[in-house]
């Protein structure tokens, strides 16, 4: 079975991704046609299939192709924002400086200005028992 796909409609990366998704079900080879700017995909099923099943396989491949093309388009559209987020997370020195506490090296960890190390009982005292018992 052969499919002729226009490279003006489907990007090459999307075609290759769709083919890759089918290599567990079929043997696939690609060829170009320079005169028509198209790629010919030859699909040979691994299992013996009826005519109807073959048609289903090709139809599934076409659906996968659309799916791949869409994913490719989304990935292309979001490339800048993706790179920005990764760059911001990994490489921005200003961000890591802002996250670190100021005067980090001057801090003395033995001091306890907020009284965190003091036990609760010592800080607030024990609760007095109710004087009037019913």
């Amino acid at each position, binding site marked *: 079975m052969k499919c002729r796909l226009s490279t003006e409609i489907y990007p090459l990366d999307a075609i290759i991704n769709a083919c*890759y998704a089918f290599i567990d079900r079929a043997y*696939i*080879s690609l060829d170009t046609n320079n005169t028509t700017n198209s790629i010919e995909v030859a699909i040979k099923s691994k299992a013996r299939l009826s005519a109807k099943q073959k048609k289903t396989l090709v139809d599934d491949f076409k659906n996968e192709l659309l799916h791949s093309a869409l994913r490719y388009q989304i990935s292309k559209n979001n490339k800048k924002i993706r790179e920005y987020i990764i760059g911001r997370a990994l490489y921005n020195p200003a961000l890591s400086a802002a996250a670190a506490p100021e005067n980090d090296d001057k801090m003395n960890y033995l001091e306890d200005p907020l009284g965190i190390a003091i036990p609760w009982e010592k800080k607030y005292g024990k609760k007095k028992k109710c004087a009037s018992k019913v």
Partner: protein
Amino acid sequence: MGKKRNALLRFDSALYPAKALKKAIRAYSELGDFKLTKVGRYFCVEINNIAPSQQTVISDEFKNYCLGTLL
């Protein structure tokens, strides 16, 4: 059982880079003798010394492997 049998596969050089094909040949080198040549815009892979019963399977699986190396 004679083991010498040839299969010739053609790969469009616009789609399949030589590096990908060489990688696939390295992976399949234990199954037979592979030879890569360039004829026009096609890379030709000649496969020799594969078991006759496995010739089709190896050729087809080799094509799929080449496709996988494109990613």
